[in-house]
């Protein structure tokens, strides 16, 4: 029987995204109950523009990283009776119409955590270096450190049920949160599903050494994962 999932909240962390934020808000907002933008200490007009578009805007006074911003959004969603939370990107790399596809397995009671994958049928034009080197490397690190195999472990498009949300606290402020969420989902024995999604590449968000904002860059992510292991 289909469960009743009423309130869907989409969380979009945004760090200096004034170019894309209005478009993303306009696309996503009609599709869900509430859209939460977490402005992660942007120095541009992201905050003002998001407010003007009528989204719920939470503001980090200083830049804390994407993981930190997502956790802020998650806590807001929990406090505001969300049944399903969707993590989405501010830079327009995901398609808003695929939100309904990613929440479907939760709505039908099939899964607690749904992860988008670029490698399950739908066509994304992934830069060669990213497809052949970075993503397989990230997959290998995930396999070794957290023993979870997904076709696309570093994908930021995901949906979590309230049950999953209550069990998962993102502690990694930077980009290592992708692996962390996977790890915690599997540790709590939540049911995982992958669905095919499309990714549109504009620009390189993530290099091996550095990306945009705090806690980014491939090596930094691996370092954060090791540190998290050490500290726990």
């Amino acid at each position, binding site marked *: 029987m289909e469960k009743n999932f009423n309130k869907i909240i989409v969380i979009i962390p945004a760090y200096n995204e004034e170019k894309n934020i209005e478009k993303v808000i306009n696309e996503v907002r009609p599709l869900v109950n509430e859209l939460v933008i977490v402005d992660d200490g942007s120095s541009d007009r992201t905050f003002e523009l998001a407010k003007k578009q009528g989204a719920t805007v939470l503001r980090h*006074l200083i830049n804390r990283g994407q993981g930190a911003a997502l956790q802020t959004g998650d806590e807001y969603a929990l406090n505001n009776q969300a049944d399903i939370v969707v993590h989405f990107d501010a830079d327009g790399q995901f398609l808003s119409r695929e939100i309904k596809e990613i929440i479907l397995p939760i709505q039908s009671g099939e899964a607690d955590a749904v992860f988008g994958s670029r490698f399950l049928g739908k066509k994304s034009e992934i830069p060669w270096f990213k497809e052949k080197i970075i993503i397989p490397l990230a997959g290998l690190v995930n396999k070794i450190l957290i023993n979870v195999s997904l076709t696309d472990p570093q994908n930021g498009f995901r949906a979590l049920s309230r049950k999953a949300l209550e069990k998962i606290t993102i502690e990694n402020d930077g980009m290592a949160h992708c692996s962390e969420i996977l790890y915690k989902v599997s540790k709590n024995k939540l049911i995982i599903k992958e669905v095919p999604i499309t990714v549109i590449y504009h620009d390189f968000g993530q290099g091996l050494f550095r990306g945009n904002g705090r806690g980014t860059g491939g090596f930094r992510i691996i370092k954060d994962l090791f540190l998290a292991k050490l*500290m726990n």
Partner: protein
Amino acid sequence: MIQQIIALVIILFFVSRLFWQKKNKEIGGNEFIFWLVFWILAALLIIFLKQVDSFVAALGFSGKGIDVLFYLSVVVLFYLVFKLGLKMEKIEKDITKIVRKISLNDKEDKN
């Protein structure tokens, strides 16, 4: 001999500063004791450098006592840097918690 005296004078300078800082309440009790023990230990090792030499030789090191002390200091430094790193990480996490709390509270205030 002269080198040892110079080293001891330097240590004496740091110890006097330590007491000064303690008097002005710039450092806490634990920190004071840690550094006091540290400098006393360093002074003792310098005063008994001959004994350290023979001890080190007995352990099978080819270098002199002072060399081995130098190696040890590098090890201690590495350890302290590592501890500092972990502590920084913890502070970073605490900052995030504060920033998050403020952002969520701000939102509630406006509702």
